[in-house]
């Protein structure tokens, strides 16, 4: 059964200039490196990148920065990547920092049809600038709003032809959230499993959220 498994060419054809790309991974781990290569090969540029971080210089997700495909970044931390920091300081990349927990909730809202979430994270700091403050039961909260993308790049440990996904250890990280929050969700899976081989209760991302799985 082929199901949602697609050729490299079909995956490369998903990318266009100016897209918003959401990418799973944390500190170079659990990153969909094969999909990043497809994105590089597509030639797409002027991208907005939503990701926890940008990895190390010219490594994993950092390759998108190195090859100057990214105009704008939404992330919680980019300090590991000297190239990203230099490009931000030079004004060549615009950046929006979001506290990591709030970033995860914004991805979750984007993937769950929710209009936003209230958190105390960032209250009393510059993070509350320009955001709505909502009062509930006498307490103030910051309203964090949804993030969505045109294309999501997901790294999974296992994928079946229906798009059901499972993850391993800390490589799970942001991937299940990214998988839900885009119009088109692409998957880079270490292991291509048969239907039902993962196990009903071991699946983390149901296939309904997945559009295409990169063929091996």
């Amino acid at each position, binding site marked *: 059964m082929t199901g949602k498994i697609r050729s490299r060419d079909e995956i490369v054809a998903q990318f266009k200039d100016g897209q918003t790309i959401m990418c799973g991974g944390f500190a170079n781990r659990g990153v969909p490196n094969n999909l990043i290569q497809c994105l590089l090969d597509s030639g797409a540029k002027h991208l907005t990148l939503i990701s926890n971080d940008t990895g190390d210089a010219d490594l994993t997700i950092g390759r998108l920065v190195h090859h100057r495909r990214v105009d704008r970044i939404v992330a*919680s931390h*980019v300090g590991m990547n000297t190239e990203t920091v230099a490009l931000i300081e030079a004004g060549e990349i615009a950046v929006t*920092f979001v506290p990591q927990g709030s970033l995860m909730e914004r991805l*979750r809202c984007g993937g769950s049809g929710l209009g936003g979430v209230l958190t105390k994270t960032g209250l*009393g700091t510059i993070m509350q600038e320009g955001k709505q403050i909502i009062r509930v039961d006498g307490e103030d909260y910051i309203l964090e709003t949804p993030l969505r993308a045109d294309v999501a790049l997901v790294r999974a440990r296992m994928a079946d032809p229906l798009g059901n996904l499972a993850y*391993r250890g800390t490589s799970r990280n942001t991937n*299940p959230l990214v998988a839900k929050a885009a119009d088109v969700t692409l998957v880079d899976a270490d292991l291509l499993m048969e239907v039902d081989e993962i196990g009903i209760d071991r699946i983390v991302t149901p296939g309904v959220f997945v559009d295409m799985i990169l063929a091996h």
Partner: protein
Amino acid sequence: MDIRNRIAKRVAAYFKSGDVVNLGIGMPSLCPAYSDPGVMFHTENGLIGVGPLSTGLRQVESFTNASGQQFLPLSGASAFDSAESFAIVRSGRLAATVLGALQVAENGDLANWARPGKMVGMGGAMDLVTGAPKVIIAMELCARGGEKKILKACTFPLTGRACVDHIVTEQGVIDVTARGLVLTDIVDGVTPQDIARQIEPELIVADDLRIMEA
């Protein structure tokens, strides 16, 4: 013991068996070597049960800490996504978080993510100081050039307001309390006056001042 391990060992004394503790990157990651084996450590990317760094055949990509280092999960470990990880952080179920600091204010304000004009992002620090019931700062008392880090008010962008509980340094431990900064532990050979000179706010000395292992 070197300064970093001295600080980590004193921090570890705050934890008891059954606690789940988040450790920030850098110095805090040395704490597990000194803590009760019943303490479990949380890494923000999504796991409880962080064990020692892994080497050789046992090294796998699928278990890495907040610094990206590969580790062995401990017996009893569980993995989850980063949203669940921060749900745990904000839920109040963590015992504590251990973080570094650039500046701490008399009222417990913390600045640890940005210097003016130099911002690389806060990672999980803002969520951690908001969600963890206890915020322990592990840092050297002064900056490398000798500038004071414990101030009447922070001048760098804040991570959180009035969030710090304990400041563990190589010279002693200072608690943030309602009546001000209280010196609770001191290293042998250092006087409270020595420490008071290296911080900006007034320093209260605890009645039961303890000696901190050097």
